[in-house]
């Protein structure tokens, strides 16, 4: 009895989300039109979970017979997911309402996705990680196909499902190999077992397969095929969730498995992860140049950003892990802001995301135009905003680790990214709006999300050291 109580208290943030998810499910089952109560219950649940996460943060440990990491680094990841979810829900309320998409189901599925993200990023046992991955993935597949009557949404859902299931297979196969090598699925035990540097082939094969599964989820080249189609085809609110929460969960798991736990062994994979980072940075930033749709452009640029974060992962150090978490926080705030503006630009059919559609936005809607510019500047990495420090810390860690080649490529590709981000600004401020071009109306919740994100981006840019120290202290 005593164990149950301890485990439940230790994993209280997860339980808060699970209970909220089930509660919203039941509320929605009783009343089809209960979007509003479901939304408020979800907000309350996320708030409670955040408070519990902060409360448990100083007590790092494990729960459920060492299946789940709790407190410490796990708290940092959980908070990232909760921030991403909260901002996404705000945007979704207006954006899905406009598209007449089911907001209640969206909220429920998002909560279940978070319930998957937490064990995915904080699993101390490969099976817990895998179950988290599956709960997260199944929720995301459904979310991508949320607008059932839209062709692009269906196509995206099917593509994501088929490729995701395939990648999940790689991950599970990797677990099987590691179990064969170590006779356990507990990550810490596996790491202890292979503390010397002679790794058996089984262990290396298993780790490589795990790497494929995780690289797929992060959308790193060459496992990026699904990213542009899925991010473009999914409803904008869902894309926001994929690019913020989905990416954070994938990197959380990547860092937990490869950096924090298999630390010694992952040095063997540093070069492999470094090459993935290099390919992602080069491909993502170059492929974003010819795009005409802003969702697709941001999708390609997200591949590039995955590359920058992988530089932090491959250092396999605490500083690297802290840098990745800081980058994710900055990226979550910036992306939600940018996608909030995109969601406001969309019409009922999900059209209006071409870059031409933004012509003259700087004059017709000065606030939206200015905010989008701020987010794009942060994505490029211009100094007063958080994006600069995110890249700076990652590059700094990599230089101290002796990976100058990656940093040089990273800086070069950042310069390339100037072109396609600035082009949006040129269209916004130096082009006349077309005839009959509708003037977008941003809903109140969207504005709250966008302004909060902007405040976060500026605050992180002003006090980066404080936040980074706070994040690094829990790893």
């Amino acid at each position, binding site marked *: *009895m005593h*164990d*149950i109580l301890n485990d439940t208290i230790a994993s209280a943030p997860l339980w808060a989300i*699970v209970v909220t998810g*089930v509660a919203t*499910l*039941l509320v*929605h*089952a*009783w009343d089809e039109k209960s979007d509003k109560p479901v939304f408020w219950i979800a907000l309350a649940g996320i708030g409670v979970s955040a408070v519990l996460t902060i409360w448990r943060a100083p007590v790092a440990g494990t729960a459920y017979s060492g299946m789940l990491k709790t407190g410490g680094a796990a708290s940092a990841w959980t908070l990232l997911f909760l921030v991403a979810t909260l901002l996404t829900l705000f945007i979704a309320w207006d954006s899905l309402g406009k598209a007449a998409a089911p907001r209640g189901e969206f909220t429920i599925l998002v909560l279940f996705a978070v319930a998957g993200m937490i064990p995915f990023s904080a699993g101390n046992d490969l099976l817990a990680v895998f179950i988290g991955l599956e709960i997260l993935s199944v929720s995301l597949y459904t979310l991508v196909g949320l607008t059932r009557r839209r062709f692009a949404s269906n196509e995206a859902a099917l593509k994501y499902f088929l490729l995701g299931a395939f990648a999940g297979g790689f991950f599970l196969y990797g677990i099987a190999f590691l179990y064969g090598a170590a006779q356990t699925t507990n990550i810490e035990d596996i790491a202890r077992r292979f503390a010397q540097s002679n790794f058996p082939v089984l262990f290396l094969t298993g780790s490589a397969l795990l790497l494929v599964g995780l690289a797929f989820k992060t959308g790193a080249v060459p496992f990026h095929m699904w990213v542009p189609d899925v991010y473009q085809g999914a409803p904008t609110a869902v894309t926001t969730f994929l690019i913020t929460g989905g990416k954070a969960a994938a990197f959380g798991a990547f860092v937990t498995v490869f950096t924090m736990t298999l630390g010694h062994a992952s040095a063997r994979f540093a070069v492999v992860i470094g090459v993935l980072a290099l390919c992602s940075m080069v491909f993502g930033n170059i492929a974003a140049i010819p795009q005409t749709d802003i969702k697709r452009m941001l999708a390609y640029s997200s591949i590039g950003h995955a590359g920058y974060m992988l530089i932090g992962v491959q250092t396999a150090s605490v500083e690297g892990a802290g840098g990745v978490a800081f980058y994710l926080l900055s990226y979550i705030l910036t992306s939600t802001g940018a996608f909030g503006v995109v969601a406001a630009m969309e019409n009922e059919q999900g059209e209006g995301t071409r870059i031409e559609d933004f012509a003259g936005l700087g004059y017709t809607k000065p606030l939206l135009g200015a905010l989008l510019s701020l987010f794009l500047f942060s994505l490029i990495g211009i100094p007063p905003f958080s994006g600069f420090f995110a890249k700076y810390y990652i590059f700094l860690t990599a230089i101290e680790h002796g990976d100058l080649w990656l940093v040089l490529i990273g800086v070069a590709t950042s310069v390339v990214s100037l072109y396609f981000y600035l082009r949006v600004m040129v269209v916004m401020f130096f082009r006349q709006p077309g005839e009959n071009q509708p003037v977008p109306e941003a809903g109140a919740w969207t504005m709250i999300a966008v302004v909060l994100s902007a405040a976060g981006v500026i605050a992180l840019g002003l006090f980066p050291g404080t936040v980074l120290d706070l994040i690094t202290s829990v790893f």
Partner: protein
Amino acid sequence: MPEEYIPIVLILLCALAFGMVAVWLSRILGPRRDYPEKLTTYESGVEPVRTAHERFSVKYYMVAVLFILFDIEVVFIYPWAVRYRALGWYGLIEMVVFIGILLAGYIYILKKEALKWD
């Protein structure tokens, strides 16, 4: 190591040979008296009149998904039943939570009328 598998290979070959010989023998030894009724798809019953490539109701899909869901629930209950005493209260409470979550899903299904046939 490989020689241990020789008996298995032999069994496989025997089975294959026996099956082929049996089919072949019945073909040449058996009497064949064909007449039109015998060559139809069914000697008795309803005449097949439509194409076999027919669309069938998507409702089957719903039932199939729900069946798999609750079928797997039972798969999880079996190992718990085997270790019931060893797992004690901890196992019991975990199982109640697990079934409770599934029950919430079941109520959702009922309320959304996913099990209503039309």
